[in-house]
């Protein structure tokens, strides 16, 4: 057997000092072997990032590290700073999460890529530029000679992350640590970056530790997986085993709580409660209060189980690892809202345009327009969920805000309940808005920190002068019941709540005026994986009980598939394809939709080698200077001359329910599509 590149035993990390120390990592053992990708999965606060920083001695001085870490023969915990420094430049490469901040803004990218090698004496300064260009070429950056002399702000997000990969790999390290390397990127760019990372890793035979919260990414790239919870590894196994037969209740619950892009109709099975906060861990097993198996078991309450072998190459830290029920109770099927039969549509948007002026020159004249939304048409029926999906900058949020009247529409019409609501004066708009409410993405930013949550939920009623009319304090208490919050919390302030609870408060506030339509702007994107399921279920229950219509704005294709009745895909301010949910996911006809769906990672390692993947080139163009004709043509695999000349109209595709804007619309050749249920069977 080969020796591991990295071997960690009994790693403990405490933060803080003077009496109060907070254990963030509490006894972690693992090995990483050459040419292997180990994924560490966990939610926020699980200690995964701290573990990765600890193994290279990069933690700040307030951290106290115990245990043994052997990296390429060096004992990291006892080595002197100079040895560690040498080791970092030679044996380990690091890729961090946010490419916008990991590069120094005032030094050229080329210099930053090569300065490690220069500092370690492996590269002469005179050869640095050529070397930088070579490294950038290896990560598929066009014009590497020119790019090496540019500054980070001149790079797009995906290019920056590729430059960081080039930097991490410059010294041909034996181990690469990537901490959430694609979390800040769009899905099509994520696919590019993961592809580059995988290719470079294979070329060099390095070991990789990839830290992520995204089970799709894990299934896509991992050889082996370590699941962390509450500062410990609770399960490790080869990737196929983890997904097929998890041996820890947390892993099982996590897999069942995420919406999947390839299946859609089972109700999500959320993990109750909140992830533990380091420093306030429950006694015994940290997962015990949320565990379907061990909750209230005396043994689990008393004793933190050790990580022990439960089979070939796999370990689990659970008292009942051997006795887990073979298959938990089948999840309830998703309850669909009674489809509203032949109602008048509640919201009709036609040709909506939102253009922002670009001002340049000495006199700040308007020299151009950013067409954030450029001719969007959609309708929402009562009781129905229509989703707007797209990558960042596609205009989905601006569309939502323009409908709500928060951003001025510069063209098109918006009708709500038969009445035009565009360009209304303030008073009329106010009345119209009572029927239509907005839920914001970031629950931390959307609640006024100086008001109690009771006042926050009551605020819309007070603004409209309806507080007493609608039942006053009793109404607020009812709203709290509706969103599953205890009435005892009424007098508290937003800072006392967790993210999931805050989002519930945001929903209660939106419901206060008894609206017919909620515009939900990425309502679960800021939440931990295990909390997302709780909020999604709540939204679905409320929709059924109150007959609400939702306009659901999101980038996460799995969540969208799970919640929607109809889906519209946006690209650069326009809808490129719109259809019923199953129509869109099973038979996408627009090349962008097809690429988007194929780029989304599927949390199932069994399909990763058989799935057809379209990796788009380039990134989303600047909306201030969109490409001519069809704005997607520079990245499109079907583009022909007509695409750069004429913009396609948004029309029905053949006699399908689907409408699309493409000169060459049509299903992918070969099989119908990777995510269609039929395709899944072929794949497995």
């Amino acid at each position: 057997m080969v020796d591991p590149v990295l071997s960690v035993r009994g790693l403990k990390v405490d933060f803080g000092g003077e009496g109060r120390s907070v254990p963030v990592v509490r006894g972690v053992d693992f090995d990483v072997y050459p040419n292997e990708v180990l994924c560490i999965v966990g939610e926020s606060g699980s200690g995964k990032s701290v573990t990765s920083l600890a193994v290279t001695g990069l933690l700040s001085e307030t951290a106290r590290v115990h245990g043994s870490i052997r990296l390429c023969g060096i004992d990291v915990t006892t080595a002197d700073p100079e040895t560690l420094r040498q080791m970092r430049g030679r044996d380990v490469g690091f890729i961090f999460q946010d490419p916008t901040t990991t590069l120094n803004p005032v030094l050229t990218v080329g210099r930053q890529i090569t300065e490690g090698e220069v500092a370690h004496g492996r590269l002469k300064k005179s050869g640095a530029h050529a070397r930088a260009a070579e490294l950038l070429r290896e990560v598929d950056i066009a014009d590497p000679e020119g790019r090496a002399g540019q500054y980070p702000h001149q790079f797009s997000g995906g290019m920056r992350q590729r430059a960081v990969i080039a930097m991490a790999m410059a010294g041909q390290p034996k181990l690469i640590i990537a901490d959430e390397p694609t979390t800040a990127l769009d899905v099509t760019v994520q696919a590019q970056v993961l592809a580059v990372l995988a290719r470079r890793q294979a070329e060099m035979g390095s070991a990789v530790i990839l830290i992520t919260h995204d089970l799709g990414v894990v299934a896509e790239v991992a050889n082996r997986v370590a699941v962390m919870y509450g500062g410990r590894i609770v399960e490790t196994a080869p990737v196929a085993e983890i997904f097929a037969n998890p041996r820890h209740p947390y892993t099982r619950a996590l897999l069942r709580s995420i919406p999947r892009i390839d299946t859609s109709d089972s109700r999500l099975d959320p993990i109750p409660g909140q992830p533990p906060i380091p420093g306030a861990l429950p006694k015994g097993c940290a997962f015990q209060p949320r565990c379907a198996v061990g909750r209230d078991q005396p043994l689990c309450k008393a004793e933190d189980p050790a990580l022990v072998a439960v089979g070939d190459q796999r370990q689990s830290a659970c008292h009942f690892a051997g006795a887990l029920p073979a298959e938990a109770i089948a999840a309830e099927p998703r309850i669909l809202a009674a489809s509203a039969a032949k109602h008048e549509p509640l919201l009709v948007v036609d040709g909506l345009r939102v253009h922002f002026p670009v001002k340049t020159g000495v006199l700040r004249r308007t020299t151009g327009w950013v067409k954030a939304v450029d001719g969007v048409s959609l309708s929402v029926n009562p009781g129905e969920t229509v989703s707007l999906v797209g990558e960042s900058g596609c205009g989905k949020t601006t569309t939502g805000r323009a409908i709500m009247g928060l951003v001025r529409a510069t063209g098109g019409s918006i009708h709500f309940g038969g009445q035009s609501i565009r360009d209304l004066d303030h008073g009329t708009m106010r009345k119209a808005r009572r029927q239509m409410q907005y839920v914001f993405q970031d629950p931390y930013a959307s609640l006024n920190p100086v008001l109690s949550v009771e006042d926050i939920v009551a605020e819309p009623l007070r603004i409209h002068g309806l507080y007493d009319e609608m039942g006053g304090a009793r109404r607020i208490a009812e709203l709290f019941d509706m969103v599953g919050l205890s009435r005892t919390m009424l007098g508290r302030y937003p800072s006392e709540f967790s993210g999931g609870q805050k989002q519930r408060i945001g929903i209660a506030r939106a419901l206060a005026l008894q609206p017919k339509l909620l515009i939900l702007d990425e309502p679960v994107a800021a939440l931990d994986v295990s909390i997302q399921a709780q909020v999604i279920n709540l939204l679905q229950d409320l929709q059924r009980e109150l007959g609400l219509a939702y306009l659901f704005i999101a980038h996460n294709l799995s969540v969208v598939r799970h919640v929607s009745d109809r889906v519209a895909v946006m690209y650069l301010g326009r809808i490129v394809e719109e259809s019923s949910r199953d129509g869109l996911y099973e038979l996408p006809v627009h090349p962008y939709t097809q690429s988007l769906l194929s780029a989304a990672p599927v949390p199932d390692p069994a399909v990763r080698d058989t799935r057809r993947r379209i990796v788009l080139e380039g990134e989303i163009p600047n909306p201030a200077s969109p490409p001519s004709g069809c704005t997607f043509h520079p990245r499109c695999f079907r583009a022909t001359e007509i695409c750069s000349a004429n913009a396609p109209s948004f029309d029905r595709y053949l006699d399908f329910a689907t409408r699309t804007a493409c000169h060459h619309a049509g299903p992918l050749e070969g099989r119908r599509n990777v995510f269609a249920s039929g395709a899944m069977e072929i794949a497995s």
Partner: protein
Amino acid sequence: MIGFVLRRLLQLVPVLLLASTAIWAMIYAVPGGPIGAIAGDNASPEQIAAATAQFGLDRPVLVQYADWLWNAIRGDFGMSIRGRAPVLELIGQRLPATLQLAVAATIVSLVIGIPVAIASALRPGSWLDRILSGWSAMALGVPTFWLGILLILVFAVELRWLPSASAYVPIWKDPLGAIRNLALPALTLGIYVSGILARFLRASLVSELRADYVRTARSKGLPERQIVGVHILRNALLPFITIVGLMMANFIGGAVVTEAVFTYPGIGRLLIQAISTRDYPLIQGCIVVILVLYIAINMAVDVLYAYIDPRIDYR
């Protein structure tokens, strides 16, 4: 680049116009109006008539303003009432002294401020940091006029090493004499401003030290010397340049107090004399000259900053 400079200049036009209007209108707001201001409160009717004719005060207000502005643009602020000399000439005599003091004080403040900031930022919270931060607070909190008095008390009254009143000696004529005369005022101003500079630079160093790119640099195995000297310092010095520029701009017009303490013949003292003798043309001239210099330095700093920071697109 030229467009950027032009745009900045254009933004200055309304400010300059408004400010000059205010300065011109000053004289009308004085009790007794412009005539009282020029001829004095106890002027005889003949004197008033003479002043009215001499200064064209019988013309329409707008004409008077346009006339004044046109002259001001050409550098003509009229005659000093008490000094009986062209205002610009009086100012011209004082300007070199002020500039020399400004440069000396800037050097002192940088020599003290930068090392203090770096030493305390490298180990935030350490005893050295606490001592140095306390020092910056003292430097800032002690009024310059009191600090000046203390310095005079020690170095002029007790030790008799340096003069208690500083004259203007051009440094190229008599370097030693110039230094003897400049030492106390430059130290007074320099200490005060070094407190500002140290506090500012320390804050930006500390926040840069926590930046993600520092962790990246460490992960590459760069020597700490290089991380601080290249990565951090480059980022922290960018905004620092602005502050240094602002302080220099302040020295030009704002060293009034220090000049008064050391009876130093700079433009600030000229202005105080003008105010106490109610010499309005001289007051207006001083303020306009200071204003123009102050704004010019501020603008130069802005442009310089945009030029050296790669992130700012100055097109």
